[in-house]
């Protein structure tokens, strides 16, 4: 009897965790069918009206566009930089080993703290960045005062925090690659670029794609870095979907409407994850064949 129960007991923690996620999710989904807000604590069922309002608002499309720009920009730069850093660190040297330890430091800082630190460093009059750029005639840059500057600055902070994450994943991937194909290429006199393009990259792709999936999905739901750096400004230029949802649900207390934003964001992340994970499967199979 005890033995028969064991499998069920073993899945209890996972079951509880799943319920803990699904219950508020289902409840949130249910709330979106009402017009629940602080000013209407006894709401009426409005069916899909909240979603209709979301999709007909210019503010939503602006936020969706900013979110995609941010996620694509951050994930792309972090991936390229992360892989480049991993390739440099992969060459075993004392400097590489020391840098490897230092590299993970930004990951140990909470993103919101990193954003506050960068906000101070980017401050035009007293910030260290403009102080360092002054000798080059660039001491007066107002980093977060223009829509483009604010978005690029936010992406830059994201890149600073998360590039080490991509680098560590890529480095782990590089170290797990078989050595024989590279030795054979060296014997044949293959150049570095050829080896990289034909051997390293195809076999490293699954690791890179895992990093892309993590970073892209995480960037789609960014809140802390942007809110701490710009609060979504100037104007609406950095109001990503999460910030819009937070403002609607918490600050303006239109709960149902705010949750509708998060449900839409969930759908976007789900679709993106589906596509990327499917792609990952194909790449894993190709990489296995290459090995």
């Amino acid at each position: 009897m005890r033995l028969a129960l064991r499998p069920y007991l073993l899945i209890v923690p996972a079951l509880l965790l799943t319920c803990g996620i699904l219950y508020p999710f289902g409840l949130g989904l249910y709330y979106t069918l009402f017009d629940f807000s602080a000013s209407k604590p006894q709401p009426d069922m409005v069916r899909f009206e909240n979603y209709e309002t979301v999709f007909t608002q210019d503010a939503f499309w602006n936020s969706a566009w900013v979110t995609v720009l941010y996620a694509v920009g951050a994930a792309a730069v972090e991936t390229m930089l992360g892989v480049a850093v991993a390739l440099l660190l992969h060459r075993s040297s004392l400097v590489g080993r020391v840098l490897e330890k230092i590299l993970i430091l930004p990951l140990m800082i909470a993103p919101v703290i990193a954003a506050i630190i960068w906000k101070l460093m980017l401050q035009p009059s007293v910030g260290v960045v403009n102080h360092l750029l002054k000798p080059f005639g660039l001491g007066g840059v107002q980093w977060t005062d223009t829509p483009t500057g604010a978005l690029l600055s936010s992406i830059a902070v994201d890149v600073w925090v998360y590039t080490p994450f991509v680098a560590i994943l890529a480095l782990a991937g590089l170290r797990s690659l078989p050595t024989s194909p590279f030795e054979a290429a060296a014997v044949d006199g293959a150049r570095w670029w050829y080896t990289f393009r034909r051997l390293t990259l195809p076999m490293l792709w699954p690791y890179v794609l895992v990093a892309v999936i993590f970073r892209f999905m995480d960037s789609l739901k960014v809140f802390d870095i942007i809110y701490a750096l710009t609060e979504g400004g100037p104007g609406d230029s950095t109001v990503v979907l999460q910030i819009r949802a937070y403002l609607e649900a918490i600050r303006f207390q239109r709960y149902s409407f705010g949750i509708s934003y998060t449900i839409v964001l969930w759908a976007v992340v789900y679709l993106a994850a589906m596509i990327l994970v499917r792609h990952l499967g194909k790449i894993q199979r190709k990489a296995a064949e290459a090995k």
Partner: protein
Amino acid sequence: MDTHAHDRRRFLALGAALAAAPVLSACGAGFGGDDDKSDGSAADDVTGSFDWKREKDTTVKALLNKHPYTDALIADLKAFTEKTGIKVEYDVFPEDNYFDKLTVDLSSGRASYDVFMLGAYMVWQYGPPGWLEDLGPWMRNSAATGAEWDQADFFPNLLQADQWSLKAGAPLGQGGQYALPWGWETNVVAYNTEVFKKLGLQPAKTFDELREIAGVIKDKAPGAGFDGMYGIAVRGSRSWATIHPGFMTMYARNGLHDFTVSGEKLTPAMNTPEAIAFTEDWAGMVKQGGPPSWTSYTWYQCSSDLGAKKAGMLFDADTAAYFQAVEGASPASGKIAFHPGPKGPGGSLATNMWIWSLGMNAKSKKKSASWLFLQWATGKEHLRKSAITHNHIDPVRKSVADDAAYKDKMRHLPGFIETFETVVDQTKIQFTPQAQFFDATTSWAAALQEIYGGKSAKSVLNGLAGDLADKVG
């Protein structure tokens, strides 16, 4: 086809995506309805003669914002416990998180905190759902309220600011008393006397002069020994808090309104030709003489810049300058003076205000003890002590403002008392009360940033008015 792998991937994607909806759980406590609201007040249960010891051995839980007023309160809590036998437990949060914490707590319908700090604007948000106890019945009940509390001693505009009928557009000073004024701020101009003397400047009498002086300081101060100094510090972040201090004060002095009220209908008025012209001028002033990176400026940066001699003037809460002006507080200590700021075209000194108030949770199970705490915290004895021995200014009570010891303490700050006395009667909440206040003012701040960034004021403010007409009207 590997269907298991396919399902696994789908499950992985689903799990990852679920993490994208963190706000969902914040509202997971069920519809926080007002279904147990009744017409009767718990104040009616208090009978007999007034007694400070009535609720001895009770514990009251307070939610407080990190602030010098709070420091003064905490320092004096022992006196309250000795007087009443009531213990006060408290949590203190920084302002960035404070109102989110309070909002979530109140909306959950729990009574985690019996009393809390709030601003008068929050009454418009927390009042309509029934989260705030109407303190009127407590104030009127002589068994619950001691004679020495003396309601008439409060500046009347402050008590009125926390009183509302919960109807959008209805004037303040009618209906329930949803909080009590505890400490407040008028919005005036503070300036660096050193730079004014060196450049031969006088405080601005008109808005045109203010803009001009801001530009002169930014152009000339760095060359006159004030390295990196700009003209005027005003808030600029994408937040409701950007609108209410200097901007709203000058806006009101120009005779402008946020909304016009006709019956129960509110029409946005920030896009009238006069409002557009004023907003353009304000953004122009910031460009000409304001801080670099203005769009991230909160009260903290504004206040710090005045103290660090980076700003020649500050148009914000008088307390924001006061905390830099007190001896030893900043490099500019002893060199900061106060002035009511420019008058409007008709000579108006209409001034907007912020009131740190104290409120009671309508769901509190310890209302009688909570009321004793509110009564003590807003009473003459504690407020006088806090104002004189701590930094609890501006006083909400006339007796404290007129107190010789308080005046002696403030006299060394040039112009502080005179400025306070000049604007106090014209200081009130200049906004139209309505539940969407935070949405409207946050959008207004975003619009101001866009105008500062070079967009047409007319088109931005027309867009804002159109958007708000749907939400508020």
